[in-house]
């Protein structure tokens, strides 16, 4: 892979395809069933030997009962939380032991003649060979019902792209969260990196268990659909530390309800948190513990423990429970988008059916391969400062990967547009040249578009709303590179203000070696007998000069700075005069008095010093590779 991803300011595709048709299809109205409230039993009242049952979905959408017997209670298992230990008794569970995806399954215990809700199936042991689970007490989970929502989680009248019953007025979740620091990028504006963001977040969330002998939260299977095996593998390295276990599961991640899908969540039913849905999908799957009114508790542990949040959820259908010595897991797919995950807390998740999560429609047009049967990809991705850049990058990678699937040499460009509410549409160009092979999603972590999403959504000044992302992938099945074999000065000295000529020897892939004369003026500010070092670098290696952004508009302006052509070589040398950057402005090549004057000693609002360069570009027709340096002497003027 050449330089992976760089951007160019190029005309964008104006095509803004929508998912509208499918997304707005609403189910016929059916009166909803609200789970009747049930009596509960506190951990203090639970005794070893008590028996009862649990509810979970082993197949389909209907919960199945399984028997339980209390082994004991681990008091103060976590701060302010006990843990019930139960044996789970069911023919299927004898085989599969502890199952990822069962998290949240309600456990009822017989207290005299009454079955009382005791808690949620939530913990297990790695490599455990007994069907023994830890149960998060229901009273701990119920506290999260009472947790006030973020004051910024305002109910707004809005039209849901995927709505529940029409009589329900959907509330649109705010983009602000109560505790943004949980998933925020902690770094300087302009220095965003998806990989380091993932590291930061995984460090803050869900620490690793002390040992395999310690009860661990039962993993949450992240069912992936429409993505390559490589993407799933990459996702595993990123998300597994956070307790999300990516599984290639198929299923597009419903954007429209299945005909036979239940209309509402039920206790013990399967629930999916939809991080991405459409032609590529990712959903975290667990079990509903208890439905109260329009809200529900689930999982018995956090999904990632990000606090107040807004991610779309769906009723899920379980296809099978796969058995594994290390970790058995449910495999399934969403069947009815419904509601929003509003709290992701230590002991539970909380979902509100009546809130519609903001999502970002994403469309990718794939061009250049006439044999590609699917030329348009439509997806929705979660609107989240942590998740969005990652899933968008994976979507880009998936689109490129699918298009290049035949593994021929290929060059491609990805022209992305990010529509930002109130700020217009930003355009980004990325390109890549591969000798063979499919770049994964992580390769697009360095894409201009992916990084821009991260920069924008994690900016420290104000909340931004991404309205949609569109991209156009153009593939040319040729390895369109031009490698620099060497650079040679035609004249080893120039007069002040003269032009230095450099012969570049170029070798196109599968082409004949050629030469091109590149030239750059040596400015008269260089005195005679001064040696000037001229670098030869590909255009894509040259970063535009920019001032450190001090507000969102400056950040956007920096993201849209024009860059040099990746199909050009650049001659450049340092200008002897330095520059400064401040307040969105770059002032290069300043005389000394001005540098002094621009840096007042009486204040701390200071410009940043920048090195000034003089540059010239030479188009070479292909993606430039390689660097070189030559030195030219400034000779005394002849006149």
């Amino acid at each position, binding site marked *: 892979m050449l330089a992976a991803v760089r951007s160019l300011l190029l005309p964008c595709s104006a095509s803004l395809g929508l998912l509208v048709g499918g997304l707005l299809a609403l189910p016929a109205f059916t009166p909803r069933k609200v789970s009747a409230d049930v009596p509960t039993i506190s951990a203090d009242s639970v005794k070893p030997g008590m028996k009862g049952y649990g509810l979970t979905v082993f197949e389909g959408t209907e919960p199945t009962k399984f028997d339980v017997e209390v082994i004991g209670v681990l008091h103060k298992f976590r701060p302010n939380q006990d843990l019930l230990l139960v044996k789970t008794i069911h023919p299927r569970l004898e085989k599969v032991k502890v199952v990822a995806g069962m998290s949240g399954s309600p456990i009822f215990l017989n207290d005299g003649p009454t079955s009382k809700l005791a808690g949620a199936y939530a913990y297990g042991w790695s490599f455990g060979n007994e069907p023994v689970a830890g149960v998060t007490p229901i009273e701990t989970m119920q506290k999260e019902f009472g947790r006030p929502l973020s004051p910024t989680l305002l109910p707004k009248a809005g039209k849901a792209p995927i709505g529940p019953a029409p009589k329900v007025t959907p509330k649109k979740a705010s983009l602000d969260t109560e505790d943004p620091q949980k998933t925020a990028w902690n770094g300087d504006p302009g220095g965003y990196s998806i990989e380091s963001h993932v590291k930061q977040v995984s460090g803050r969330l869900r620490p690793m268990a002390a040992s395999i002998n310690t009860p661990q939260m039962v993993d949450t299977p992240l069912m992936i659909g429409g993505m390559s095996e490589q993407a799933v593998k990459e996702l595993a390295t990123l998300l597994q530390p956070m307790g999300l276990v990516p599984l290639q599961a198929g299923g597009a991640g419903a954007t429209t309800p299945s005909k036979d899908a239940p209309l509402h969540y039920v206790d013990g039913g399967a629930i999916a948190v939809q991080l991405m849905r459409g032609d590529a999908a990712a959903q975290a799957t667990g079990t509903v513990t208890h439905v109260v009114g329009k809200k529900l508790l689930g999982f018995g542990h956090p999904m990632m423990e990000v606090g107040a949040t807004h991610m779309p959820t769906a009723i899920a259908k379980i296809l099978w429970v796969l058995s594994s010595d290390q970790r058995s897991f449910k495999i399934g797919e969403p069947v009815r988008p419904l509601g929003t995950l509003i709290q992701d807390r230590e002991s539970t998740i909380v979902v509100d059916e009546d809130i519609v999560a903001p999502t970002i429609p994403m469309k990718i047009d794939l061009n250049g391969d006439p044999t590609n049967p699917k030329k348009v990809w439509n997806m929705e991705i979660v609107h989240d400062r942590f998740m969005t850049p990652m899933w968008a990058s994976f979507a880009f990678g998936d689109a490129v990967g699918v298009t290049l699937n035949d593994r021929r040499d290929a060059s491609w460009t990805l022209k992305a547009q990010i529509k930002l509410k109130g700020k217009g549409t930003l355009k980004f160009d990325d390109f890549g040249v591969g000798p063979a092979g499919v770049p994964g999603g992580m390769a697009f972590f360095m894409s201009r578009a992916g990084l821009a999403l991260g920069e924008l959504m994690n900016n*420290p*000044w104000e909340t931004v709303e991404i309205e949609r992302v569109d991209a156009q992938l153009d593939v040319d099945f040729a390895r369109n590179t031009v490698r620099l074999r060497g650079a040679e000065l035609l004249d080893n000295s120039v007069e002040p203000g003269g032009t230095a000529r450099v012969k570049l020897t170029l070798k196109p892939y599968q082409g004949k070696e050629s030469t091109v004369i590149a030239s750059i003026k040596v400015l008269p500010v260089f005195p005679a007998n001064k040696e000037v070092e001229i670098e030869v670098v590909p255009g894509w290696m040259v970063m535009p000069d*920019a001032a450190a952004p001090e507000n969102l508009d400056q950040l956007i302006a920096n993201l849209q700075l024009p860059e040099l052509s990746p199909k050009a070589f650049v001659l450049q040398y340092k200008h002897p005069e330095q520059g400064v950057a401040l307040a969105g402005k770059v002032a*290069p090549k*300043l005389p000394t008095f001005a540098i002094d004057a621009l840096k*007042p000693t*009486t*204040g701390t609002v200071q410009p940043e*010093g920048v090195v000034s360069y003089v540059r010239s570009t030479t188009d070479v027709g292909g993606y430039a590779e390689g660097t070189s340096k030559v030195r030219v002497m400034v000779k005394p003027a002849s006149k």
Partner: protein
Amino acid sequence: MRSSRSISFVVAVGLGAVGGGLWSAHDAREAAAVGTRTFELDTQEKLSGGELKGTSVTAAGDVIAGWAVSKTTLSKGTVVWSALALKDGSVLLGVGNEGRVLKVDAGGKETVVAETGTLAVTALVEGPGGKIYAGTIPEGEIFVVDPNASVGTNPSAPSAPKPKAWSKVPADHIWALVYDQKRKELFAGTGPDGKIFRVAAAGKAQIFHQVEDGQVLSLAIAPSGTVYAGTSSKGLLVAISAPGKAEVVQDFDGHEVKAIGFAATPAAEAPKDPKKPAPKAAAPSDGDSLYCVVNEYGTVPEPFKKFGMPLKQPGASFDPPKGIKGKGQVWKISGLDKDGRNGKPERIYADTTTHYLSLAVVPAPKQGGPAVYVGSANDGKVVSIDDAHGSALVAKADSRSIGAIGLVGNGDKGSWFAGGDAGVFHRVTGVGGADATWTSKVLDAGLKARWGKLNWRTLGGAVELSTHTGPTATPDDSWSAWSNPLAAPGKATSPTNRFVQIRARWKGNAAAVLRGVSLAFVTDNLRAIVTEVSVPSKGSLTSGVVTSGADTPWKSGSLGLSWKTDNPDQDVLRYRLWYRKEESTVWRNITKDEEPLAGTSYSWNTEALAEGWYRVRVEASDEVSNPVGQALKHGLDSPPFLVDNTPPVITKIALANGRLQATVVDGVGPIVRLEVQIDGKAPWKPVASVDGILDEATEQVDAPLGLVGSHVVALRAYDSAGNAVTREIEGK
């Protein structure tokens, strides 16, 4: 100069360091009177550093009538880059890093005229019909601003106008604008490609000339119509008499020509005697004269190179930079031909402590009076310079740099200067006058002092002097009130204190010249303490480890004594030395009582002394600085040291079977080195004593020398005082 009234952002000149701050008693001159010292303020450096109000300090050390100024603190501008005086008496200021145009009206009120959205408004000039152009960095934009559209600076004031750029020249930076009334054209000096643009009325820019340098920092149009440009970083002064016709007038030994100003053609002076014919004005053939400011810098460190977008966290703070200090010069080039040739350059001012930013040429200089005013970049100085190389510190702003100076008349009332870092505007409210005062910097007597005569000399008129004193280095409430003024030299009446300031008031006589100010004082007498007396280690056992068997002891009949004292009141001290044998109680003179020492060391010849252990006493006395009866003294004894003037004696020596046997005896000992030489051939080689330790006055030698056959062996022994004895023996 017939262009506009643009005040370009110029650079500077230098007085020899006109420092501020405290002047301590260490600098005070010892007076002839016992115990009395004097602060003598007789140079520009010593007279500067305090406050000048309606006064200035010349390089010759005269305090003369100067500028009294009012002050407007600029709340909307950090650094003043450019300025333009308007007809109504107000002044427009181009400031950074906010890119604003401010206006300070005749009453000193600050308003905002325009927000250009740039980093700095680097040039302001008035064009046809009163149109005002503002040149900016860093995008080469020229704005047309309306000075009447200004808004207040209070938070509730409406937003200042944000004009659109009238012209955008194809260059990053505009450093200078000048409007040619004859050509009806606006010229813009730019960087970083050294281009001078001619900007038409519609804002369209066209290259007029490109210099062989990077930045065109200054522009001026000569009476002849030739455009002069000052450049950076080669420091060129270029004359462009027509497009494509340029001449390098001067390649200065500096990096930038920051400002240029043309001298007006001298006007004919009115005859003092009406009967005599008026002197002729300078003939046109004398050519044009210009002044320019030239700066020179050291290496500016390259900023750290970063990759990617610059980073900054909101709220991040940085330590403010210390600033760049260059060196400034002011040059006069006279006799310039129309095309810029044949000029006669003359450096009329130089300052190694700061570079300069602003220049204003006196339109009609008086004989011997200032020809130009320049403003410094590092210490807020406004300096006047005359053609005879004389200079005076005219004013000192409460800011680091003086970005612009504007003159009314020859620097009369109404003149102004604007400073940056922090932003300030000063207007001259008068020259000299009843309120004119000169205040010295704070003078430090070192200790609480009583004040004597306050003396001064005047020329051409009277001034009154007074003092105030206090216990702190910075005047505050603890200081006394200013004393009643003295119309003639006399005793200062301020209370006893450590610190003092002197103030002179001009009583309305603008012609008065003050010079040679002095103030006598006496501090409380504190005793000088001798803190250490040192006797050299060689030849004694008093100072650490003495080598034996290694270096040859050094023998000298003289002993070098030295001592240290703590002298809190800086009195002149005299020292007396005594000695005694350790077992004696009688101190005997080393120095004569009537010839005390002034230094802190003494070479004492001990050859006449009997061998033994001695001590020396050093006594310090401040009798020279204090009257009889008030002098104080203090003495300190040295550690004991050995005086040994007699060499050892080799009482027995024998050489048999290749072994040397001997006995060496000294009077007071110990023996510190024994060495032998075989057959008179160097080198001497050390031998050990029988017990292996050279620590006694008597040592035995029994050393196998490994000799075969007959040889002459010489044995030499040293005592610790370096006395030596040698004996030879021949044997086998």
